[in-house]
């Protein structure tokens, strides 16, 4: 009665086997948002993970997927069920930081691993770090710092900054300002879920800024960019993959063209693993993967690499195997810091029209071997 994805059947054609193929499959619970406004990202997370399992073949992982409906209560309940009834040893999948903040402490308290394919709230990277909690994506501030660094170094001296009024939004503007060397022409906190940005765009117009930095994930970003394109305000926009990633670009259309944004990966990231990933994803799902799909794909491969090296029942050994990060990431170099968050290169990308599709093209390196500022507050070594 569960939504199971038993890979043995589907991977029959690609049986490569893994090192521990004779052991029982490890149950991995993937809790993500598959309904409501965030369903697009959740679908990418699920599809990225499943693609990795299909391509690896074998049945090392028994995957259970469920929808959290973007409700913290629901996510906690599902996590409990996966641990207590399904006996999952590893949980993953959560997109939103507020759900992660509710679920992760509860999961690690039950001696179960959590590997995040997306949400990277700062408390869990700093004082709240935990040996059982890994983040395979980023710490939330990373992309904002990269954009801030780039803006300051590339002629933007008077930036107007904008984000929604919730912890991720305040973190975004704090992160941007941390590495930005110019002046802030104006700083606005919008309402979470706001759809009409006319008031804010009017203020941008009046501010005399030479650039605009926005953090507006999901539908908020789509609304803003469309309205911005209609407003006649011509100031260049700089942002992050949260706002102008592949999940949002098709809906934004031309309105997003030329926006420079930061991300540790783009569909054109130049390595063999990524080329294979993007080709396979397009073939399997009929669309170009987003950064979320790439993170989830990496999460799956990270977990598979650990399963091949250690027994999940031996928490210490498995933890060491995860920390070793002995897998090929589609973003290039990948290593964990002391707080088990990634140390990785961050790039700037630009939104372009390529082969009739609107997508991101890598411009260049923004920060090399970025490590988040909260690692110092984590007492793990």
């Amino acid at each position, binding site marked *: 009665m569960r939504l199971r994805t038993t890979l043995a059947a589907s991977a029959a054609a690609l049986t490569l086997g893994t090192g521990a193929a004779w052991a029982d499959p490890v149950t991995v619970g993937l809790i993500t948002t598959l309904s409501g406004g965030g369903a697009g990202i959740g679908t990418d997370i699920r599809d990225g993970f499943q693609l990795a399992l299909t391509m690896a073949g074998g049945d090392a992982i028994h995957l259970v997927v469920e929808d959290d409906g973007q409700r913290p209560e629901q996510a906690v309940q599902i996590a409990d069920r996966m641990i207590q009834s399904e006996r999952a040893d590893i949980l993953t999948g959560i997109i939103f930081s507020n759900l992660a903040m509710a679920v992760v402490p509860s999961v690690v308290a039950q001696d179960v691993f959590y590997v995040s394919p997306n949400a990277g709230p700062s408390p869990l990277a700093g004082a709240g770090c935990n040996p059982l909690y890994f983040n395979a994506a980023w710490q939330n501030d990373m992309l904002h710092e990269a954009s801030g660094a780039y803006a300051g170094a590339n002629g933007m001296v008077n930036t107007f900054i904008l984000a929604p009024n919730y912890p991720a939004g305040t973190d975004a503007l704090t992160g941007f300002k941390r590495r930005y060397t110019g002046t802030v022409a104006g700083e606005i906190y919008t309402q979470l879920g706001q759809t009409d940005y006319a008031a804010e765009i*009017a203020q941008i117009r*009046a501010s005399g800024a030479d650039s605009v930095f926005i953090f507006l994930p999901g539908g908020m970003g789509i609304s803003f960019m469309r309205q911005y394109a209609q407003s006649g305000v011509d100031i260049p926009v700089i942002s992050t993959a949260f706002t102008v990633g592949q999940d949002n670009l098709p809906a934004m259309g031309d309105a997003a063209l030329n926006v420079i944004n930061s991300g540790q990966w783009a569909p054109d990231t130049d390595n063999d693993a990524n080329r294979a990933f993007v080709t396979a994803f397009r073939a399997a799902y009929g669309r170009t993967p987003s950064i979320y799909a790439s993170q989830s794909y990496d999460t799956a491969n990270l977990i598979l690499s650990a399963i091949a090296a250690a027994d999940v029942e031996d928490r210490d050994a498995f933890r060491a195997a995860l920390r070793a990060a002995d897998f090929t990431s589609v973003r290039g170099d990948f290593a964990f810091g002391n707080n088990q968050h990634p140390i990785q290169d961050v790039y700037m990308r630009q939104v372009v029209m390529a082969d009739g599709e609107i997508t991101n093209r890598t411009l260049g390196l923004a920060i090399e071997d970025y490590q988040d500022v909260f690692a110092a507050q984590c007492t793990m070594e």
Partner: protein
Amino acid sequence: MPVTLALIFEQMLNGVQFGLMLFLMSAGLTLVFGVMGLINLAHGSLYMLGAFFCAAGAAATGNFWLGLVAGTAAAAAAGALIEVSVIRRLYTRDHLDQVLATFALILILSEGTKMVFGPFPLYLNVPPILSGTVDLGLTPYSVYRLALIGFGLAVALGLWLLIGKTRLGIRIRAGENDREMIAALGVNIRALYTLVFALGAALAGLAGALVGAVQSVQVGMGEPVLILAFVVIVIGGIGSIKGAMVGALIVGVIDTMGRFLLPRIFATFMEASDASGLGAALASMLIYVVMALVLILRPKGLFPAHA
């Protein structure tokens, strides 16, 4: 940055435009409540359907206007279908049952839309003649937003003519006042109710399609607007189109000006980022505060339809 006349003018226009789109949503809602006494939480889903079908229609034909027609027609058809199958059974039930049934409809329509159109937001763009800006002397302004103001006023005029000058309008107004009487006078109540519901749905769908071109066409886009529309009709008075217009303009202007001015007011005696956060928090609470105040002073809204 300083508050200039140009900025205030632009924000006032923004507030009016936001208010007029809210009016489209609220007019349908207040009609349905006024004539049939029905609380319809699924009104936001009809708004969403209008946007989705407009996007699909525009993508299929390459023409925004055809998409607009498709969106409005689809919403009206969905409205009629829902009325005949579900809503019709709820007229005699109390508000609680209506709330639950239409809440269930939200779940069904949201998930159904996702099953048909997929989980990602859809692309819908402003038609070329309405894109770009026009110089209004004090400030440049988006042509599309002006067009939205125009659409809103046109619909308002159309509704006024419909309600005030046609036989259908007379029946609607009579129905608001005394349902049993107009049945006794031989008006086909069932057809009238279906028609009113479909009209309300069409207005919601039209609003969704128009607004969808400059916002995100995604599942769940209707619920926030639904709540605002309820605020509007409560402020304006149930069953009153005039009330819906006044209420919508009040909500639109206050919300826009609040988001614009409150952080600045706080910044005069507080540090910039604290002021911004506190101002934003209060701005989001502001219309509810206004609604509560109106209800305390006028428990039935500004223009109650019944004497």
